[in-house]
């Protein structure tokens, strides 16, 4: 699913953000990515969802060498992925329902086809009563849950999440991890970036540890 081989990343002439990162995530795996702030987690995720190209090294995604991808091929790959952003990236002029439904609209589905799925998902994340509300009226935790619902609504093959439980209480965090596990059981490959060590310890999943751009794998 994901193969990184000696991937390096520099921003302009700045310091090396990722140093020879090599790792593989197979189809159906679920892993954590952790490390201190500034370790390069977000940069690595940006490479994985094709918002950045590595400065050097090879990155294969869904079996394709991303170095040879044309810009036209990127949207098709992104539709196979769900991404939860640390800053949520919700569209403030759309309701909770429309924000969650966005990937389905982009994929060309009619509302009658995805309405029930969206409502069920919002029910799962505890926001069914807020589906007609706008993001500006939600708390940070609620926005995060909307962002997660949007990322998983299209049942992606790969889910990348940057601090997906950072703004929710422990109870909701457990519930969300259970949602990810359910998705994983259905075949979705998942990489969760977090520096919540308690969460990592509870989940007992393989962990990538990133420190100053160097990646090592905890079994």
């Amino acid at each position, binding site marked *: 699913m994901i193969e990184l081989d000696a991937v390096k990343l520099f921003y302009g002439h700045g310091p090396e953000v990722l140093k020879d990162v090599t790792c593989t995530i197979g189809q159906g795996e679920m892993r954590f990515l952790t490390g201190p702030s500034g370790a390069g987690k977000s940069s690595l995720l940006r490479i994985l969802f094709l918002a950045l190209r590595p400065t050097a090294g090879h990155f294969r995604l869904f079996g394709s060498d991303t170095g040879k991808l044309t810009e036209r091929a990127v949207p098709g790959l*992104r539709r196979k992925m769900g991404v939860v*952003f640390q800053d949520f*990236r919700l*569209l403030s*002029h759309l309701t909770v329902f429309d924000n969650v439904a966005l990937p389905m*609209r*982009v994929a060309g589905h009619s509302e009658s086809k995805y309405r029930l799925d969206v409502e069920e998902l919002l029910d799962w994340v505890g926001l069914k009563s807020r589906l007609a509300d706008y993001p500006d009226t939600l708390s940070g935790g609620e926005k995060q849950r909307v962002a997660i619902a949007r990322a998983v609504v299209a049942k992606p093959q790969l889910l990348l999440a940057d601090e997906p439980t950072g703004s929710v209480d422990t109870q909701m965090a457990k519930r969300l991890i259970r949602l990810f596990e359910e998705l994983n059981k259905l075949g979705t490959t998942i990489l969760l970036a977090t520096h919540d060590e308690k969460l990592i310890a509870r989940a007992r999943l393989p962990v990538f540890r990133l420190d100053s751009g160097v990646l090592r794998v905890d079994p």
Partner: protein
Amino acid sequence: MREQRAPIISPRSASLLSLGVTMTVMCYLACLAVAGLLLINRAVENWDKGLSREVTVQVQQLSAIDIEDELKKATAILQQTSGVLKVEVLDRAQGLRLLEPWLGKSGLEDLPIPRLIRVTIDEAAPPDYQALQGELESKVKGVALDTHGRWRDELARAGAKMSALAIAILVLISVASMTLAAFGARAALETNREVVEVLRLVGAENRFIAGEINRRFLALGLVAGSLGCIIAVLCLLVLGWSGQISTGPLTNGTTTMLYSVSNFGWQTLAYLLLVPLLSAIFVAGAARVTLMRLLESS
């Protein structure tokens, strides 16, 4: 139950008010240009039809001739000529009335104006004008045959030039509108940068993003075009109404040319209604091309 999906691009985030006002003015001017083009063509057609149906025979008041005798001779020749349907001798008073719009009413009595014979022609089988002119000149003193050919040529030339000018104005307005739409598209993309980024991250293709933004331009083109068209039609109606109450010294023909556009036929209205449609197509087309180019290059 939800009936309509919310626009992905917020109408408020892509403020196109100034572009809308400008487009309304452009469409107003385009409607006036179209109306002008129709007016010119109709006036030229009417005049040409009138001129080709008639010729005029003038008999000069020369010394030592009896003009009434010469008029009778000319009338007799004309009546015997095949292709002539009607011969009408205008008396001196009628001749003077023709000059009144230009020279006024007073002081005309002493002018040595020629007497005129209005000759109605069978358009399907007109007379041999050269032979007719030869016969008239050989038998009538001070006679001249005016077939209005020079006027018709001049008229056709002037009409063609005016039409070309109106078409050039329409082309310029179209180019200016499309340029404005391109600027508007660039601004809309800039304003919606974050939305575009999110759309891309959830896998939207450039044509989807361009299509979502372009809906605003399509609506803008239609609304601005319709408003411009309505204002132009109102202006033309006011122009026509002011022509009906005009008491100025214009001839019937001139008044008709200036104000006849107010007598809207369905055909005229149909041409004017094309302006909002074309406006929407041009604006949306230019915006889409610009959006696609910018999205592909970003």
